[in-house]
């Protein structure tokens, strides 16, 4: 297939939202309609370019060989002690998250179609800047460039929440920013230590992620008292930043406020993409670069994942606000991803990587639908809503679809991910851990299954209240408000926002291999070092002692 060189193609994908942001800003004088149309056109162009790039990736020899594709690099700060480069590229891990960013950005633009009346120029400009940052973070192949995008996503989202959010938007914006910043500055120190370690042991300063991974594999950070437990310290430093992003319970307290107070478009990007950054960080940095520390921490993080599943589900059960309920369901669902990742079992890890995309689709869809319900009925209170299915069948049908996706109904995407995670976890619990750990692992895996039931319980309970039953009108009438929101069933732009997501919900559910196969090798490769270290750690202590006894003279 002809076209730009892959590297330029990738650069073009990331540059398009920025160019679109400029166009939207210039068109600002022409009013809200021109701005939102230009933003939608930009998002569509970006999505088409992204789709084309993914197709090219799948056909490329690099992908077959497990090499990064569409690499492009230019020096940024290469003076003195630094060798920081603007390096971009895609591999099996980043491919689908990259595509998801482009997909959800279109959704974010379309769900804001009628909702954003105040200062539309700023809103769409920030949304497009955020899209560029999200695409960039998954394409970055330089550790500082990754961190730049990682941090920079906070800035547009800070303004999106703080200006266009709901009642407590200012508090939510500042809390979100500070909480995530406080964690990621420690991640920054950890990444810097990795760079310095690699430089001092290989004799070349490199900030390239692949080079660092190879360098740390050859010269691992010390995991002994003599070496000051440096690997563990760096792991903890990285963990704090990534765990807050995921969020892993108990680092999740920023999430409900930020998700609930954000405008719908912001919630879609936040839940769909930004929560994935923490997991992406674990997969990209912690597991391949710090395998011994990861293996040591894995049982505890596996447990924290399960704790998140149960905790998130239980808190979601008692919510009265539909958006809060979905926010807590995100906590619960990200728990599966954490659990699957730290099971360090190939099936579970692949499932976790797929579940990132699955949760991105279902959470984004549900947040978008809650926003649409709010625009129509001006309440998110479950008690005040009812019988929507009769008034808005399309809305109800899509709500059902994303709910089923979320609770893991077979045939939909959520099932594939959750099944793989649970299967892998049981496999780990039966065969992969020492007998001392086995009861704990089995208990955790069983509790995770209980979490599936709980998830179905709160979601179906909410769906039953909101979509079915007697038609309830909220206390204040939907008319007579200032925003000319839509009434009745879904409008064209709302369908356009949701149907692409629905297509992928079905596609992944029915043909998961299409999506699993390209990322499997990359994900296995990134976690293999940790899995090996974990297997060594889990060898039966009796055999280890036995070996030692034999070796004694």
């Amino acid at each position, binding site marked *: 297939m002809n076209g730009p060189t892959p590297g330029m193609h990738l650069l073009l994908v990331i540059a398009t939202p920025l160019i679109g942001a400029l166009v939207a800003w210039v068109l600002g004088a022409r009013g809200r309609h021109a701005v939102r149309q230009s933003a939608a056109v930009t998002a569509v162009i970006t999505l088409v370019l992204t789709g084309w790039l993914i197709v090219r990736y799948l056909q490329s020899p690099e992908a077959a060989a497990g090499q990064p594709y569409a690499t492009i690099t230019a020096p940024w*700060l290469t003076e003195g002690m630094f060798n920081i480069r603007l390096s971009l590229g895609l591999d099996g891990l980043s491919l689908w998250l990259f595509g998801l960013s482009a997909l959800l950005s279109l959704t974010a633009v379309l769900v804001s179609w009628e909702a954003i009346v105040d200062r539309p120029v700023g809103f769409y400009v920030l949304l497009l800047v955020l899209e560029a940052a999200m695409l960039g973070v998954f394409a970055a192949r330089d550790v500082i460039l990754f961190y730049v995008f990682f941090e920079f996503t906070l800035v547009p989202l800070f303004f999106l929440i703080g200006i266009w959010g709901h009642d407590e938007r200012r508090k939510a914006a500042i809390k979100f920013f500070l909480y995530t910043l406080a964690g990621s*500055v420690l991640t920054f120190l950890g990444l810097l230590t990795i760079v310095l370690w690699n430089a001092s042991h290989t004799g070349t300063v490199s900030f390239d992620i692949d080079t660092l991974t190879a360098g740390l594999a050859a010269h691992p950070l010390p995991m002994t008292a003599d070496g000051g437990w440096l690997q563990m310290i760096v792991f903890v430093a990285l963990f704090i930043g990534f765990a807050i992003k995921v969020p892993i319970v108990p680092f999740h307290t920023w999430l409900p406020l930020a998700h609930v107070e954000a405008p719908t478009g912001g919630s879609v990007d936040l839940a769909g993409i930004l929560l994935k950054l923490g997991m992406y960080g674990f997969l990209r940095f912690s597991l391949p670069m710090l395998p011994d520390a990861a293996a040591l921490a894995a049982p505890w993080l596996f447990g924290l994942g399960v704790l998140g599943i149960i905790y998130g589900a239980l808190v979601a059960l008692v919510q009265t606000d539909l958006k809060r309920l979905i926010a807590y369901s995100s906590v619960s669902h990200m728990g599966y991803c954490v659990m699957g990742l730290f099971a360090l079992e190939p099936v579970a890890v692949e499932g976790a990587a797929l579940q990132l995309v699955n949760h991105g689709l279902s959470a984004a869809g549900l947040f978008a639908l809650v926003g649409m319900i709010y625009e129509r009925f001006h309440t998110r209170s479950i008690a005040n809503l009812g019988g929507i299915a009769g008034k808005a069948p399309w809305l109800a049908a899509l709500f059902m679809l994303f709910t089923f996706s979320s609770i893991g109904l077979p045939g939909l995407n959520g099932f594939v991910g959750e099944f793989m995670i649970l299967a892998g976890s049981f496999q780990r619990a039966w065969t992969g851990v020492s007998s001392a750990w086995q009861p704990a692992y089995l208990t955790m895996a069983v509790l995770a299954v209980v979490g599936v039931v709980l998830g179905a319980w709160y979601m179906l309970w909410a769906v039953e209240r909101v979509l079915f039953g007697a038609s309830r009108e909220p206390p204040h009438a939907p008319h007579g408000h200032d925003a000319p929101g839509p009434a009745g069933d879904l409008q064209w732009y709302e369908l356009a926002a949701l149907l692409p997501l629905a297509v992928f919900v079905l596609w992944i559910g029915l043909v998961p291999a299409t999506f699993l196969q390209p990322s499997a090798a990359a994900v296995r490769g990134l976690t293999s070092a940790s899995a090996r270290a974990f297997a060594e750690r889990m060898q039966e202590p009796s055999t280890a002692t036995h070996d030692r006894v034999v070796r004694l003279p």
Partner: protein
Amino acid sequence: MTDMTNLTDMTTSLQTFSLLAPEIALVLAAIVAFLAGAFAGLRSGWLVALVGIAAAMALAGGQPAADAAAVAAGPVLIDAFSAYIRWMVLVLGALLALVQAGDIFSAAVSRGNSAWRGGTCEEAGTFLLLLAGLSLVGIADDLVLLFAGLELVSIPTYILLALKRTDAHGQEASLKYFFLSLVASSLFLYALTCLYGIGGSTSLATIGARLRSTDDTLVGISTVLLPVALGMAMAGAAFRLAAVPMHFYAPDVYEGTSPGNAALLSTLPKVAGIVVLLRLLGLAVTGPTQAAAVGSGAVAYVTLFWQLAAVLAAITMTVGNVMALLQQNLRRLLACSSIAHAGYLLLGVAAAAAFAAAATDPVGGQGAITVADKAWTGGLGGTTATLFYLATYALATIGVFAAITYLGHRWPEWSSGSGPRPPREEITTVDDLNGLSGTNPVAAFAITVFLLSLAGIPPLPGFWGKLSLATAALEIDWNSPITFGSRRAAFVALAVILVLNAAIAAAYYLRIIAAMYFRSTKRGVQADGGLAAGLAMLACLALVFMATAQPHGLFNAAVQAGTAVRATASTTAQPAVTDNQSQHLLAQPQ
């Protein structure tokens, strides 16, 4: 004296004059400004200032490479370091001149008339002298010139503080600054006396050579004199940096004076403080290839140096940021933020000193990270990071104050039925910026960029600065384990304190941004601070964006300058070398 020595002296002084051409241009421009104001009744003194600065820039020349031999004549020395400082002074001076010019509009509005007031020529001339003094501090290779330069910074500052505001707050500010500055200057003078006692000369090169000598007679002196000298010098520099324990004046003085003066106070004295500290540190270390302190006196000196600087850095950044969290007044808040940034700068100084100390350990420089493809032996990060951070900090800070000067005043609450319209009020508190994104979007955007840079949000220049500082701190004693109480542990802790402080600082910077973007107001902002301040704001914004996209130009200059700090002493160490020492110097592979 023979004719021959007279001739040599004359050549030396001629060469000195030619090296000092930019400073002489500044002083000449100052004289023109004073005379034109007094006799010709010229009102636009700041134009003279800008012309003078432009002339100085034209004469300044480029930055020599770090390994180029320093050009020294008499008490002055031009190397990559002094050239970096000179250019920083001139660029910041041009920006500050524009901000200061804006102050005049603002002051006229405050008094209820829009007429230009007299005296701008005197202010401009005084300001030019200040710049000349600061540039001399960077060039000085002699204690006397160093102190003269510092006083040439201080005295014009008193005058500017007293000229700008004549109300009670302004008088309090200028008096407070005056007395404290005197104390700091005298402390610093004591430090210089002690250094003279050690070196037996006012020449920095000679003092450095003496300090680095392996002569055992120094041991007795150094145990008494070195701690006194360093303690006093640190105190003197801490005042100029607004670092703990000499920080407490900053909020009061910034609040009492005009935004333009606050911009000046938060940048130029800090440059002076950092230059002095790095020059004093440079005394103890040899050339760039062996950034090691040599001799027991020098080892004691750099050890004490990093310990003092590290403690002050940790306390200063934390105190500054915690104080800033509590402020409502915009200028007080920025004063506290400038205290915190002094702490970040001190961290870089501490790292530079600690590297020199580490290089003398029995394990001999094994703390350094050595890489094949770069001329990088580690440890250069400390000075480089400090100088780079100083530039990024100064740009963003001047930008914020330029924006505040430009915004000037806002209308008070008033309805047409409630009598005559009350006079406009100066913007003083964070709440006064409420809704700025609606009333003046350009200024709101510029302030946001500056504050995010100060907070160290990537990819703005402040992030590159913090990256450099964190690298400099982490690379100290790289190959030794992190054990409690070790030097490495201290610097890892400092790096953690640095980044956590960056997160704390984000809280109050975000509060200002939130006021501008998330709140609304019915009280419009006047933007009566004049075109000059607006121009300064936009110039700062442009420079910040340039340093964001292309940081390597500034960074490379900082690398050259930071490397030259070490080269200074060795290239000029000529006189008063004992036999013992000269053997030692010869023995070193250069």
